[in-house]
């Protein structure tokens, strides 16, 4: 019984982690249709930025983290302004451009030698509590709290604020949104920037659980993609549901089978979903009609 409860608790945490990882990517894509393949790289970039602030410049942790988040948002903005904007609308070029940027960023870090156990971020509070007979470290608890807050905040933002509604407007029907005076380029810029910021936020709370490695960047991208594919691109609700589906599947596989099979479970989940309901669980696959 304790094992089951423990697994459930950790599965819950895992789900929130996945949701946090995926939500930035999903937001950018859902709003501006930009699939940001540099997402994983931005995640890792922010982790290294925080690390450098902490260890090279010597600023306090919270400040370093905040600066890092802002820097990552800036990176996203620059990426859009100088590269993406020029290839806007051509799916081929957008994918390749973001992919190339992500690649360059991650491999530069790897080349410069930022690999090793010393590259890690300290947990916020080094303690653990016992929750219903299950040991759980405070960091994971904080992840759940912060993660839930971010997700709920995002939902409220896109449903109840002017800017958020504008975001959804662009996502649903760019033409109409334009006629209402919403500047699609500015919104796209903001969406990339915001997505980057969310990636940075996710990195800030999640990285302390392990260490920073450039390879992680690819993993994060894969996970975000997996969650978004299963949940349905562009649907926040779908992202959350999919995160829980994969999160629980992974955790239970890890406990009851073996840790190496977790990836396979995710893969199988993707293939199953794609065969049965290709546009994802909550996917709003735009019907052909709306393209006319």
């Amino acid at each position, binding site marked *: 019984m304790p094992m089951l409860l423990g697994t459930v608790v950790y599965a819950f945490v895992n789900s929130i982690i996945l949701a946090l990882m995926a939500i930035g990517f999903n937001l950018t894509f859902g709003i501006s249709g930009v*699939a940001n393949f540099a997402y994983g790289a931005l995640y890792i970039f922010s982790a290294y930025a925080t690390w450098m602030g902490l260890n090279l410049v010597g600023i306090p942790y919270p400040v370093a983290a905040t600066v890092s988040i802002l820097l990552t948002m800036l990176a996203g903005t620059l990426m859009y302004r100088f590269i993406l904007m020029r290839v806007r609308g051509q799916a081929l070029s957008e*994918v*390749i451009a973001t*992919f*190339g940027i992500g*690649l360059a960023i991650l491999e530069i870090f*790897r080349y410069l030698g930022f690999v090793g156990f010393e590259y890690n971020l300290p947990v916020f509070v080094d303690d653990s509590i016992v929750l219903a007979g299950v040991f759980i470290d405070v960091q994971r608890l904080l992840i759940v709290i912060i993660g839930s807050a971010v997700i709920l905040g995002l939902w409220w933002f896109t449903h109840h604020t002017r800017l958020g509604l504008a975001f959804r407007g662009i996502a649903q029907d760019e033409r109409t949104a334009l006629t209402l005076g919403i500047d699609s380029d500015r919104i796209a810029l903001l969406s990339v920037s915001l997505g980057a910021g969310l990636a940075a936020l996710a990195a800030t709370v999640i990285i302390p659980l392990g260490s920073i490695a450039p390879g992680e960047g690819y993993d994060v991208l*894969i996970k975000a993609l997996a969650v978004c594919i299963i949940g349905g691109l562009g649907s926040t609700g779908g992202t959350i549901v999919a995160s829980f589906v994969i999160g629980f599947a992974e955790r239970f596989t890890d406990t009851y089978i073996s840790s190496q099979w977790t990836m*396979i479970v995710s893969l199988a989940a993707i293939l199953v979903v794609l065969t049965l309901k290709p546009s994802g669980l909550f996917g709003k696959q735009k019907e052909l009609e709306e393209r006319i």
Partner: protein
Amino acid sequence: MQKRRERVDRGINVRSGDVFALCSWREMLYLAGPRVIPVVAILLLPLALGIYWQKVLLSVAVFALLAISWDLLAQTGMISLGQALFFGMGAYVTGILNHYWELPPLLTIPAAAVFGGLICTALLLPVLRLRGIYFSMVTLILPLMLVRLIEATRIFGGTEGLTGMTPLPSRWLEIYLIVGAMLAALFGFRRLLGTDYGLVLKGIRDNDRSVTNAGINIYWYKTQALWIASTVGAFAGAFMTHVYMFVGMPVFALDYSILPIAAAVVGGPGSLAGATLGAFILVPLSEVLRGVGGLRIVFYGVFLVVFIVALPEGIFHYVQRKYNQFERWVEVDT
């Protein structure tokens, strides 16, 4: 007095639509030159190179095949971020056939190409009906997940891979087989894309609704293009397994996915000759840069971005344009 650039076809341009009118040796040479000279040069190259650079040429041909495969898919509107999937699949099928059933390479390579292609097509079939971005994502994820699968289940040699493959009969056969395959793919697919069938494929990229409206089942054609491309990629992978006499997890490495894209983008997307040219530029370059290790991939990334933004037509089209037209400044009456 304001000036503007004007592009004028060279007087020697003898093409009208798709008809060539050849009236003199000069015209024939003008047309034949760019095609015949590189082909002859490539065919003679192995004879002139030492062993090390022959291996590089081998690599060039393999990556050229992957780049051509990528470009074919791109012209049909599918952007593959995982050429490694095709490459690795072919590599493993041939490895399995050779290792467990001891079939000779001249049998396993074609078999691996065909079956590898079929398996990859089957895996990607569900996403063909969705928006292109799903295709790209799944092609990215699949090779990475297959690696984990092999690692976890330790099948087919697991992390160590399968060793002791039968090599090809001779070094010369090796190099000419792959170079021949590359040239066959290059000219064969160019021909294909120039036919009505090819126009349908390109039409699917440009305006798939219109193609559907003509009563053509676009998914069936996409499947065909996917199968052709994956078979080519699988062939390349199968071939390399017998060259290295080894197959393992590295065959699904990101390198095999990225370099073909970089080659096609740098060389000139939308033209198979461009993809080939890109391979000829980037592979030797990466050999030269071997000393800098991981920085190579950084370069690919940077190249990708720079070319896709600043020179999207690629080197091939740029050169082609210069060859067929010349530019001059012309005064504009304001």
